[in-house]
């Protein structure tokens, strides 16, 4: 949970923070409040992160294990590398995207890899390192096909989660009708 709150929310902050200046005004408007709240989420996440990282050996092991489990999805989070991302050029031209996927990924690594190292934990990618003299990381390229599969609802939990949401949506059909009826009366 701490990993999600620090790293996934942290990753989201990179993209959403950038999009505050995008050209689609309704989105840009609502992001102001969202980013403020995400910031709070990350603070809370860091509180749990610290408690666990400074806790029992078992807690540290849990944290490291969770980091390992979520590392690939975190790298995936920012999307395909710029060289294969099909829409990036157009999106940047129209300012729907403000920064490229790779720029955001690098921003994320610069921000969060030091936190991992500071607490004596391991980055789950042995191939990750800072490029000498540059403010940039190289990392082991993950399986991009897997990202495509997940994006098409082919992830390990996708079917189950969707089915659950759809079940409740159907279950609540009468609720939606009831409130409309009442309002109309």
């Amino acid at each position, binding site marked *: 949970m701490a990993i999600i709150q620090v790293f996934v929310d942290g990753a989201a902050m990179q993209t959403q923070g950038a999009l505050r200046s995008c050209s689609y005004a309704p989105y840009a408007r609502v992001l102001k409040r969202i980013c403020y709240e995400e910031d709070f989420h990350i603070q809370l996440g860091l509180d749990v992160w610290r408690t*666990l990282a400074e*806790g029992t050996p*078992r807690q540290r092991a849990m944290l490291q294990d969770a980091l390992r489990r979520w590392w690939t999805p975190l790298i995936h989070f920012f999307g395909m590398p710029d060289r294969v991302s099909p829409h990036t050029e157009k999106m940047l031209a129209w300012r729907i995207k403000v920064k490229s996927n790779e720029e955001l990924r690098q921003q994320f690594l610069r921000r969060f890899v030091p936190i991992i190292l500071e607490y004596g934990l391991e980055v789950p990618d042995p191939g990750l390192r800072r490029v000498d003299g540059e403010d940039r990381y190289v990392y082991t390229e993950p399986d991009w096909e897997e990202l495509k599969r997940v994006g098409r609802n082919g992830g390990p939990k996708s079917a189950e989660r969707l089915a*659950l949401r759809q079940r409740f949506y159907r279950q609540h059909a*009468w*609720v939606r009708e*009831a*409130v409309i009826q*009442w*309002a109309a009366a």
Partner: protein
Amino acid sequence: MNSAARAAADPRVGAAFREWLLRAADDELIIGHRHSEWTGFGPDIESDVAMSSIAQEEIGHARAFYAQVAAGGGDADRLAFARAPADYRHATLVERENDGWEWSIVRLVLYERYEAERLRLLSASGQEPAAGLARTLLREERYHALFADAWLTRLARGREEGHRKVQAALDAAWPEALGFFEATDADATLEAAGFVDSPAAQRRRWDAAVRQVLEPCGLAIPSASPKEGGRRGQHTPEFDRLHDQMTEVWRSDPEARW
């Protein structure tokens, strides 16, 4: 000797008072847990957020009550997570699984009026800081009741199918709602000490209060016998499952800080 002084002086009264607070804490924690299970699955996003927020508040209230109980010596976290299921004192209605939105709303309506009454009695008890806490919590609970009543009205009066579903939920919930008022020795002690009137009298006031929202919805008030046990630690398999899940992290290492 007034009630406040009596409680301070008599350890039996003090113990009864703490049992009363523990019931409140357990009720709030368990119903808060059930409310939180709606997160992500509510009928619309706005109500999803509202219900999640209510859940969070109830758990916050529970924490405040546990702290009061633990003030005599103890640990709020241990009270919340380290007891065996048979040591919890909540009414069995709050441990029941969410059986549809209408079920949860009906439970919320019934519970909120009970809770409001409990908080009013507590705020008049003269026992600080518990009385002060009760006065603060009443302000938040007012919103919970508003939310519950608004939803109940729309579900029960929207259309025939909804009305039937809500009536069925009310019929199912009623016997265990009466279990809110299950009496133990503590109740007699508290009554003798002047903090509360009899459970029967409290139940009558609650009954009048819930009628005010149920009857305008055209709902029939059930006439079932109480189903009790919760106040004495007799809970259901549904609570065993909830307890298991709720205490999983705690039990993995009771000495750890989280």
